[in-house]
């Protein structure tokens, strides 16, 4: 792709810049022409300190005072290398060797995720599934995986519901569209992970966008796709990374599938190329990542292929204008980004998965973008998330609140699963697991469970863990 068409990380200009019409064409020219910068290397050196009378200076002439020279210590520590801090911040720890091995902890099976009798019990995640989940970045920091010996999760009522949705989609070869809502720390992302785990165990092809924010905040390269109206933008680096994740996580499924369709690609393809190899080709070269992704999708939706599970976390970020700018300096709507558009087409029901499948998205309550339209909304009794508001717009149109038509269309008719707190039985189950892991020293009694249940806002699972395990006194 010619570099003149590639817009790298073009942020919102300040309002003073917007006043004068600037049409940036290349990223390089823009970077060199940047009038000021926040980065250390481009900053002017700080002005030297004045050598004059300072507050803590030597005493005036003639006074007798004790003079103590302060010893200045030179730091010998190595400054962190670029990316080191980020790696530390994003590190996923899935095991705590100090935690006890829980006796009788059974691995999750296809049945255990659908069985109502399992509600309130904790099941371990099988090793292969853990590897796959790790590749698709389904585990998040701060979810408390590093507190216990091995990844395990509670089977709750909603887990069984999701398990059934997946099972039905496979049987009836239909597309199910689900959005997970709920209070902060109520377990939406973990439920999404359970859905992914179920899909991996069923041998589905899994496609996961772990953080929707990464797609829209302007941190990855984007370029317009020619011959599209309205113009769509491909994010080639992100797509390459996504392809690499798909090929690694679904290696066992994709390595058994070969190309059957003809594709219009910039390079010739081998006849009996397996799909995971196809993904790797795209992962290796970001320039052809997007065409390869399209080719992969064409193959996956062809008849006779396994069902597909598409998941996205942090839905509100893709339901608004992105931080990217079009060449006319207007912000690009998130739905004009090719990858987001791909997901939204299936979420809105505009397209169907031919072999059946599930499109699932979770809302994030701790990382919600500001929505100016909602800030002017009249005061509501209940705190309501952005997405919930948009969903309500579908039912009861409020003419005084600006709603995004594309967003409302995208969410039309989705199944909404609203997560609340755990029931007391579920809370007891998970606390017994904490105790068996040695992370909770108290005896799990009825009174103890009900106390923590109340403190955790009627069983919000993240708060339950915080009260029982993390903030142990």
């Amino acid at each position, binding site marked *: 792709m010619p570099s003149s068409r590639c817009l790298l990380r073009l942020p919102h200009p300040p309002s003073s810049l917007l006043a004068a019409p600037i049409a940036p064409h290349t990223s390089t020219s823009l970077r060199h022409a940047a009038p000021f910068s926040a980065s250390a290397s481009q900053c002017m050196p700080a002005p030297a300190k004045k050598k004059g009378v300072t507050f803590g200076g030597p005493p005036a002439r003639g006074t007798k005072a004790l003079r103590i020279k302060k010893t200045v210590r030179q730091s010998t520590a190595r400054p962190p290398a670029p990316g080191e801090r980020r790696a530390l911040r994003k590190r996923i720890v899935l095991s705590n060797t100090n935690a006890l091995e829980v006796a009788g902890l059974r691995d999750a099976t296809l049945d255990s995720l659908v069985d109502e009798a399992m509600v309130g019990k904790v099941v371990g995640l099988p090793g292969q599934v853990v590897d796959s989940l790790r590749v698709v970045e389904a585990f998040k920091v701060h979810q408390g995986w590093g507190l216990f010996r091995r990844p395990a999760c509670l089977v709750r009522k909603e887990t069984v519901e999701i398990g059934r949705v997946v099972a039905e989609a496979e049987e009836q070869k239909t597309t199910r569209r689900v959005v997970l809502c709920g209070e902060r720390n109520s377990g939406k992302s973990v439920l999404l992970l359970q859905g992914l785990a179920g899909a991996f165990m069923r041998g589905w092809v899994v496609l996961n966008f772990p953080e929707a924010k990464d797609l829209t905040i302007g941190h990855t390269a984007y370029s317009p796709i020619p011959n599209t109206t309205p113009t769509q933008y491909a994010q080639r680096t992100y797509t390459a990374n996504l392809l690499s994740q798909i090929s690694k996580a679904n290696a066992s499924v994709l390595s058994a599938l070969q190309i059957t369709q003809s594709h219009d690609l910039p390079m010739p393809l081998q006849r009996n190329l397996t799909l995971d190899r196809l993904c790797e080709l795209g992962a290796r070269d970001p320039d052809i990542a997007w065409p390869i992704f399209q080719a992969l999708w064409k193959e996956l939706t062809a008849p006779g292929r396994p069902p597909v599970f598409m998941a996205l976390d942090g839905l509100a970020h893709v339901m608004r204008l992105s931080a990217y700018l079009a060449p006319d300096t207007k912000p690009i709507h998130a739905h004009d980004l090719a990858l987001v558009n791909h997901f939204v087409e299936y979420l809105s029901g505009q397209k169907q998965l031919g072999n059946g499948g599930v499109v699932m998205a979770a809302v994030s309550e701790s990382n919600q973008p500001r929505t100016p339209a909602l800030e002017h909304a009249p005061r509501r009794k209940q705190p309501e998330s952005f997405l919930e508001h948009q969903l309500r717009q579908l039912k009861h149109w409020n003419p005084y609140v600006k709603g995004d038509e594309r967003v409302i269309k995208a969410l039309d008719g989705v199944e909404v699963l609203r997560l609340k707190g755990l029931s007391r039985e579920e809370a007891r189950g998970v606390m017994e697991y904490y105790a068996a892991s040695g992370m909770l020293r108290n005896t799990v009694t009825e*009174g103890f469970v*009900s106390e923590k249940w109340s403190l*955790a806002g*009627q069983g*919000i699972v993240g708060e339950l863990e915080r009260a029982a395990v993390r903030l142990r006194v």
Partner: protein
Amino acid sequence: MKGVELSTGFQRAVCSVCRPRRPRSDASKHLVKRIRYPVSSASFSTSPTRRATDLTPASNRGIAAAPFSFGGDSEDSGLLKRVRVVPASPSYFSGKPDFTDSLLSLQALLRKYQTLPTVPAGQAPRVAWKTLAQFRLSLSEPVKAAKYHKIVEVLHRLNHIHPSLMPEEVLEALQKHKRDINPFENVANPRFIDGYGRAWGTGRRKASVATACVVEGEGEVLVNGKTLTQFFGRLHDRESVIWALKSTQRIDKYNIWALVKGGGTTGQAEALTLAVGKALMVHEPLLKPALRRAGCVTRDPRRVERKKPGHVKARKMPTWVKR
């Protein structure tokens, strides 16, 4: 100077011989105003009225020497009455006449009515007697605490006379020693559980005011329409809210619906502690001692201390600088 005094003294003496300058009747009226009490016939008195009553043949048998006769003339004694200056109260020479009078009068009352039936200890109507400072102010005499305590003891005993037989005289005497406002009459309104099974309680802490409604339930809490986790980010604050229930092991027995305003998070949480505690006491009044031990009954009166002039904050002083 001396000459002047002498001359005026002489003038006075002459005047008193001619005409009574101060009518005796006035003095006697003043005496009557004071509470009189029976005095044994053997007692000694310097006042003329008393002496007049004592000058009976029977009193001659008293311990003191027989009264000195100034000639036995009635006219002479009348003159003497006019000439001699006599203190109004027999307690005049005790130094604290009003105090002594009131103590003696109360003791006399008690002696008079000590045979009346009394109520058992602790069951008399609660009365707040005047404080020592108030008593001193009313007498303008330097009364010591221990002395006043004697009066209070008598008052206390008199207050225990059975109310149905309480003499008017005693009531009047007690009334004089009561405070203007009886704090024990200020009784809190009794609280009830309403028709929906709700009990309301109010609590305050720092600048926060909380109202809590406690119903039988299973441990659900809503504060200003939000759950505990949504309203209080800090676990300690959440524990404060349900502390009254936790300390009495009733978390899973009641639901709380509360409104709170003013102040900061800690103040709001601790105002809720009190509000929930009070509402819980409506449901189960016997929990009061347990709740008091848990600190859910008494309001913490501390507020922000005011800033003082010359200080940076309430107490902080500006840094000392040499020049």
